[in-house]
């Protein structure tokens, strides 16, 4: 079939996940943070699909599961953006540094 091995997919997923993690932990802008979280989710999706194809019992379960994840991620992004907009209306900022109410 194809000559691309499982490790390559996993490496791609790992790199993608680390980029997402880095973005989620370091970026100041809440929108970027949200996008970074999407990146991490997609890295997980790649993992799911790759294992579905290359595992000992290949099947469609993993791919269907990743479809679900994409749907849930879409819903999550919608909720996240809604919260973000509400937050922006309240505080006139999307800077994550200033959202430290947990301290109080």
């Amino acid at each position, binding site marked *: 079939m194809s000559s691309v091995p499982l490790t390559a997919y996993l490496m791609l997923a790992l790199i993608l996940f680390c980029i997402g993690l880095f973005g*989620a932990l370091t970026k100041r802008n809440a929108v970027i943070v949200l996008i970074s979280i999407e990146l991490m989710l997609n890295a997980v999706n790649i993992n799911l699909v790759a294992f579905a194809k290359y595992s000992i019992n290949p099947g469609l379960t993993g791919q269907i599961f990743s479809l679900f994840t994409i749907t849930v991620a879409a819903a999550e992004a919608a909720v996240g953006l809604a919260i973000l907009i509400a937050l922006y209306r309240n505080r006139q900022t999307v800077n994550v540094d200033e959202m430290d109410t947990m301290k109080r």
Partner: protein
Amino acid sequence: MLQMSWLIPLFPLLSFILLLLFRKSKSESTAWIGVLLTGISLVMSVGVFLAVWQGEGIKTEGTWFQIGERAITMGFEVNPLNALMLVIVSLVSFLVHLYSKGYMHGDERFPVFFAYLGLFSFAMLGLVVSPNLLQLYMFWELVGLGSFLLIGFYYFKPEAKAAAKKAFVMTRIGDVGLFIGMVLLFWQVGSFEYDEIFASVKNGDISSGMLTLTALCIFVGAVGKSGQLPLHTWLPDAMEGPTPVSALIHAATMVAAGVYLVAAMYPLFQASEAALTVVAVVGGLTAIFAASIGLMQKDIKRVLAYSTVSQLGYMMLALGASGYVAGIFHLTTHAFFKALLFLAAGSVIHAVHTQNIEEMGGLWKKLRITGPLFLIGALAISGVPLLSGFFSKDEILASTYADGKYGLFWLAVIAAFMTAFYMFRLFFLVFTGEARGNEKGVHESPSVMTFPMIVLGVLAVVAGYLNTTWFGTFLSDYLAQGPVELPHGDHHGPAWIPLVATLAAALGIGLAYLIYQKGTLSRDWITRSFPSLAEVIYNKWYIDEGYDQTVVKGTRGLSKLGVLFDRYVVDGLVTAVTNGVQGLSKIGSRLQNGQVQSYGTAAIFGIVILLLIVALTGGYFS
């Protein structure tokens, strides 16, 4: 009557409690509570005394608690010595209560003063009826507390505050001695009971060195309380208290407690020749030393205070010279005439509102009652024949002479001369001549003040006839019933001793007359000839300054070292601990900054570390 004698100390205690309840009261009739209750004590004391006079006695005790085999008891005892003390204490206390009703008139804390007087009387009476050393020690400290409270009654005056503290600390030095003596006795005898202690002293259960040591330790307690030589400095300062307090505590009763202690423990002292000699020497030196200071003081109460110290020295001298009866006799007469002198001085101060004798004078005509009474007191203390002081002083001199202590005998004679001189210096300066101070508003004290003085005046005259060679030695017969075996034979020295004593008194009075009344000799006649000696005496032999330079400075230095240790070592340790904890928590609190991102970072690092550990150790699954 005797079974009830334990009630005697409780009436003043009741007065103390009641008056504390009324302490905010503005009414001065609260004084009658104290007067009435001490009056009951007085009546009962007299009843007890009469019963004991007939040869009765009582001792009742119950076990307080048990230490191993030893039972510590509490109870009361009446024997001739303490029955006499009961009468003296309750009488003077009653009269002082009455007197204070007039003297303290208008004071803001009027009921509190009487409450303190009640507390003191309770403690003193309790001390007297104690049948064992432990109980005595408790009352001993309570008496000290009463004295402290009353000296510091005018606590807003810094001198009074300092004097109260000084009295407390100085007597405490003595109390430590007494405590050590008590512990040693308990160790040796296994009991605090007088009877058992005396029994084992008699049986020779205690080695003679230990005997001397315990006797001396107990004597240290007496030295502190009775203001004897090294520890006397608190007593003159205690004159900062109200004058009735000086009469009650610092003349008649508490300071005599030291003498009483030595008398009560007399068999112990008798067993040790060395201890008796120390008592006699300390007493003799105190007598002449304090008398010399009294010659030059300007404060009427301080002159009397030094005179008290000197007379207490006399009593100690008598006890040390085996003159047991003479010591107790002088204690009795002194209580009366010195209380009289203090009350009269209080009446003078009440009239002229100063204590400086240079600002008095010519008061004889204005104080028609106080003046003659003061004269009676002065004559009695000077040892003029037929008055009480003559008999007791004569007895002391005779027993000192009979005991072979000739050096101390002559010291005592010189002290008697000085006593007569300074008492009449006081008398002439205060009552005769021209008025040198404020004359307006000088009036005799109210009868509530003069009545106690009159009673004491009568006693100061007649108390001497308790024990005379002419009419009968009632007191020594009476005291002979007690547990103390009186030294064999009466101390009737040569017949010339009364003559010498009278001569000394007459010389002193005459000299004072020539200097302060006639003016034949100028007032600085002696001071001019020996200016440096006069300077030293006027400054009380620099004893206070000496203590300041040595003991006080030493203690201060030591406590400064202690402060340094505390500040840099103890505090340093504590600060190190707190700083450590604070630093840790600062790091911890910096982690909590409210930002999800840093929490997330921390979580990631945690997981990474966990994974690393799992990977390096071979993992959970291996």
